[in-house]
């Protein structure tokens, strides 16, 4: 090898300077810190005040839940040790595990649980349905409490376990006394991590430190259930743009990268020491929601025609680029959830769509598709939908804006004739949020959700679903709701897709869960 003066000088300079120039990530041993790029910024800390997913995920770090959902979406006790439901389905008795304590070292008591449940019931969609049925709460002793209902409500315990916002997090009674329209900013929970309030920089960084006093369950961790064993001292959530995160994981400055933008997956897969894998095996569902109040979508025949114009494979292939990451089955309940069924599903049928379009008497009026350009999935889904509708002969106009503007316009629901209305909006919802006829607001026939679908028959079926405790009966009702909702074009369920994470090979035992969780995880030095 020839050693020139220039190469010698460069090597010498690099040798002298490298201890100073190496990034902190490379200079320090990984230790017991996990630095992660999380999906979205954390701006509100109170998971009952807002339904934002980032706040919900933060809730799982700081607070604990009475029940959890395992990776197979089965309800499992979490803070609860044992529970009993009376034969008539009216009396629920819960007994807490021993050793539960809040971060301020006060024990978790029945009063705390009751106050937290009451606050949650004022805010959560499913829980608010049981609130009017509650005859009373009773704290039997410090660890046992009873909820009595006036009529059976089979979804009470599943609602306490659900991972979709709002989650039934338990907080001290003094905090839970805050009205749900007012945000709690003091973060005292009994969860596996403590929130480092002094290190929190909104939109930039949130830090969680191990709760040494946390007593995990003895079962293995699975989803949000099982033993939440904390193996790292610190978890740092960093909020950054996708490109910055890609550079950061390549240079060892972060260990975990939640749901990278799909177009970056091939780049990340090629990085030595980085693995791309799916932890949320329940996945997400693409939702195309028509506005039932605006012509021509106020006509069920037109909505049926629209449903047959959509080929979701194009949406998901364009967005994800990998057919392995999605499944199209036409069910309103995502694949892998208990009520998923093919019955009544509607599939791409251009000829059928044309026949229905003629029957509906479409006369070329503009169809407004809302688009949020700052959300990759929304940008792509709305672009593909617009193209498919144009191919079917519709006069489509894409209305682009940022998410906030789009959302405001959608909720305002002005008449399209006035120039600021809309016809179609897209969402990508996590599977558990769409898993049953109650949790999925897009299946509401009460006209109380964006898109404002109404149908008395569906509302009757949803009430029947709530009343029964028999799983087979629930499945039968859920199936009827699916058939009816698809017939009426409540919304287009565009298949189930997976969003992989990217993580350093130094991480071990990452938990499979529908929401990102940071317990059980270890770091190899």
């Amino acid at each position, binding site marked *: 090898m020839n050693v020139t003066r220039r190469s010698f000088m460069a090597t010498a300079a690099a040798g002298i*300077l*490298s201890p*100073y*120039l*190496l*990034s*902190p*990530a*490379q200079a320090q041993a990984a230790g017991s810190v996990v630095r992660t790029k999380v999906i979205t*910024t954390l*701006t*509100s*800390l109170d998971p009952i*005040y*807002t*339904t*934002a997913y980032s706040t919900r995920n933060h809730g799982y770090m700081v607070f604990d839940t009475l029940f959890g959902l395992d990776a197979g979406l089965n309800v499992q006790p979490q803070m609860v040790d044992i529970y009993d439901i009376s034969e008539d389905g009216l009396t629920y008795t819960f007994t807490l595990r021993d050793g539960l304590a809040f971060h301020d070292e006060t024990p978790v008591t029945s009063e705390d649980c009751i106050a937290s449940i009451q606050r949650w019931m004022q*805010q959560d*969609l499913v829980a608010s349905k049981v609130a009017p049925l509650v005859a009373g709460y009773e704290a039997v002793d410090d660890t046992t409490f009873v909820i009595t209902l006036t009529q059976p409500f089979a979804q009470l315990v599943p609602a306490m376990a659900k991972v979709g*916002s709002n989650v039934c997090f338990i907080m001290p009674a003094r905090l839970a006394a805050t*009205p*749900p*329209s*007012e*945000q709690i*900013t003091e973060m005292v929970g009994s969860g596996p991590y403590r929130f480092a309030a002094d290190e929190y*920089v*909104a*939109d*930039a*960084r949130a830090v969680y430190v191990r709760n040494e006093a946390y007593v995990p369950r003895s079962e293995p961790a699975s989803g949000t259930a099982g033993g939440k064993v904390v193996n790292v001292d610190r978890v740092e959530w*960093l909020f*950054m*743009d996708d*490109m*910055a*995160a890609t*550079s*950061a994981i*390549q*240079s060892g*400055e972060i260990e975990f990268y939640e749901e990278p933008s799909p177009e970056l997956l091939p780049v990340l897969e090629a990085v030595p020491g980085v693995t791309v894998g799916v932890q949320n095996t329940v996945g997400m569902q693409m939702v195309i929601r028509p506005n039932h109040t605006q012509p021509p979508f106020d006509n069920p025949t037109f909505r049926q025609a629209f449903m047959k114009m959509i080929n979701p494979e194009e949406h998901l292939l364009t967005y994800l680029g990998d057919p392995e990451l999605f499944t199209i089955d036409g069910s309103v309940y995502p694949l892998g959830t208990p009520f998923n069924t093919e019955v009544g599903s509607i599939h791409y049928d251009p000829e059928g769509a044309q026949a229905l379009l003629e029957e509906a008497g479409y006369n070329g009026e503009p169809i407004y598709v809302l688009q949020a350009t*700052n959300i990759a999935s929304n940008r792509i889904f709305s672009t593909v939908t617009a193209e498919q509708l144009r191919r079917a002969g519709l006069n489509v106009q894409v209305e682009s*804006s*940022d*998410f*906030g*503007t789009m*959302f*405001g*316009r959608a*909720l305002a629901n002005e008449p399209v004739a006035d120039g600021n209305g809309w016809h179609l909006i897209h*969402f990508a919802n996590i599977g558990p*949020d769409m898993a049953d006829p109650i949790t999925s*607001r897009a299946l509401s026939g009460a006209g*109380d*959700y*964006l898109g404002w679908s109404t149908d008395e028959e569906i509302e009757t079926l949803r009430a029947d679903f709530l009343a029964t405790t028999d799983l087979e009966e629930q499945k039968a009702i859920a199936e009827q709701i699916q058939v009816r909702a698809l017939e009426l074009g409540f919304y287009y369920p565009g298949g189930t897709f997976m969003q992989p994470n990217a993580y350093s090979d130094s991480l071990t035992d990452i938990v499979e869960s529908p929401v990102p969780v940071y317990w059980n995880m270890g770091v190899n030095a």
Partner: protein
Amino acid sequence: MFAYFIKRLLAAVPTLIIVAFAVFMMLELSPGDPAELIAGDTATPEQIAAIRAQLNLDQPFVARAVAWVGQLGTGDLGVSLYTRIPVSELIAQRIEPSLVLTVVTILLATFIGIPLGVLAAVRVGSILDRIVMFISVLGFSVPVFIVGYALVLIFATNLGLLPAQGYSPLSDGLWGTLRAVIMPAFALGGVYMAQIARVTRAAMLEVLSEDYVRTARAKGVKSTIILFRHALPNAAIPIVTVIGFGVGAMLGGVVVTETVFNIPGLGRLAADSILRRDYPVIQALTLIFAFIYVAVNLAVDLSYGFFDPRVRAWGKGGHA
């Protein structure tokens, strides 16, 4: 000069009031409702209304405007609608990274741009002049984010010499801070470096063709003295103007740079707040940016007097 300074300072007050009023109006007219965004898509109209009432967003525009002005009068910038953290605290958390980035960028742009411009002027028409002008056109034309990602690829990903993202506060050591901001400063400073180099070259060419320079040369004065003692101070006014203009324009560039390099500064705070309609934060930041802009312009104006005796004479009531 002091009277001039006070006069200019007072003249800034109506500017700031107009900016504050315009921002309030624009936010009022812009679509999107923070209460809806906070509540999320599954919230009921009642829940949204409760949040709106809790945040006083249900109050009429005039009532909110009056309340805001009253708050400002007591030095209170309000509370973020989302985090419920006082805006002054949010700004205090974010001001250091932006300030350090801006100062380092201006220093780099100035200390590289001026010598390059002088060099190009002295060797006008030479290969060196062309190279400097080529670099300056490049600096002008390539967007900040392209330069940023290229620098990250080379110095962080491939060579591993500098951190790819993030910021290290001054309290953790100056060296760490400099390592964190050196790439962002180069990315952000490219445009200003180019501007300063071009303006310096043009101003120096003009000055170097003046009679007094020719006379100095004829008298055998050393060329370095001609350049740095006689020519450069006389070319300073356009250079200082472009530097001042750069500081103002940089406020926009900082948003992109802070995003590319994940620096938790005021630029990112502004962009994030706009996207989620966090009105008190947007209003406070706009006022601060407007104040910086006014202050920099004032500093530039005052510096004219330092470089040009004619301006000083005019300030004292003399004639230029």
